[in-house]
């Protein structure tokens, strides 16, 4: 699992957000476009790209992309 590829996969879940704003230390909840729908998109991406079932609890205890990246990597 590659960090750069993860960032791209994460950015693809957003329609209106500049990918430049999405970095590994970004607090995703501070992105204007973060919504219940983008949360589901990120969960779906984790399932499709990495075969990892990212739970609501996993998302709840994460604040940055790095947190999510670590959780997915730990479940691989």
């Amino acid at each position: 699992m590659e960090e750069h590829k993860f960032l791209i996969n994460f950015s693809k879940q957003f329609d209106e957000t500049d990918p430049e704003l999405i970095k590994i230390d970004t607090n995703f909840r501070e992105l204007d476009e973060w919504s219940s729908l983008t949360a589901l998109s990120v969960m779906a991406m984790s399932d499709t790209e990495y075969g990892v079932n990212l739970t609501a609890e996993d998302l709840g205890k994460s604040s940055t992309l790095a947190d999510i990246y670590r959780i997915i990597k730990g479940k691989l």
Partner: protein
Amino acid sequence: MEAKIKAISYYLPEKVFDNQEINELFPEWSIDKISSKTGIYNRHISNDDEFSSDMAVKVAEKLFEEHQIDRNHIDFILLCTQSPDYFLPTTACIVQNKLGIPTSCGALDFNLGCSGFVYGLGLSKGLIYSSVATNVLLITAETYSKFIHPQDKSNRTIFGDAASATLITMNDGFAEIGSFELGTDGKGAENLIVKKGGLRFPGLSLQNEDVLDEFGNVTNPGKLCMNGAEIFSFTSTAVPELIKNVLSKNNILADEVNLYIFHQANKYMLNHLRKKINIEEEKFYYFLEDCGNTVSSTIPIALTEAKKEDKLKGNVLLAGFGVGYSWAGCLLKIS
């Protein structure tokens, strides 16, 4: 002996709640975004004085009229609802009387959500095979809109009210009901719940109990509370397994299924499941544009529309999943 679906009709309340109204109430959600992500354009909302029994009566009358069905031949009413008129009596008893179905019929309610229609087919098949009944009227009726907080953007966007009526008969009909796979996991109970109003937590909801979630949805324990992310995670795991087991219980391969009709939760979730299970788009039926997620009525509504489009052929696989957690799948063999 065979148990077959003979006819299906559905009813949508007159009042329409469209994406433009949602956008006016919640300007941060553009009309395009709502339709592209959820696949929903309109939801139908029951009037303040229209309840599950009213919708059940309307849809059954529609079934009798559209398919020339003699109500005197019905010997069992199964009514699936989670929004009944009363704690007691049973909604199905009220409906029997209003419809003028003979008093010799059996009638009961059962409380299930999105898995309810498939469960109802299983119960009907059991009643027919055990010679308890020969003509079962299966009704689904939900007024979830009455459970939803006015400021709960997510749930107001997804859910609509509806009712369906299906006649299941012995040996006569267009779809033979095959074998079932069921599943239950009550550990998900808290993730889709109306907590107050029953006996454990009686009383009406209070304004000062309102809770704002991180996505800006407002709800309270007297209203429908859904943890969408948990539900998504549950379906991603449970549904692929459900489909695999329905296929094996019916001794068929995935290639032999002509059409898959899933509970129409929302387009986003359906697309994810379809891709995960590897189902071709042509074999996967969608119908939520004009009604949204109508809980136990989504599958019978989709079946009705698929039949109109002449898409019901060969093997049709049904799958319902949601609140409980509860899930159910079965195969229909179309003749």
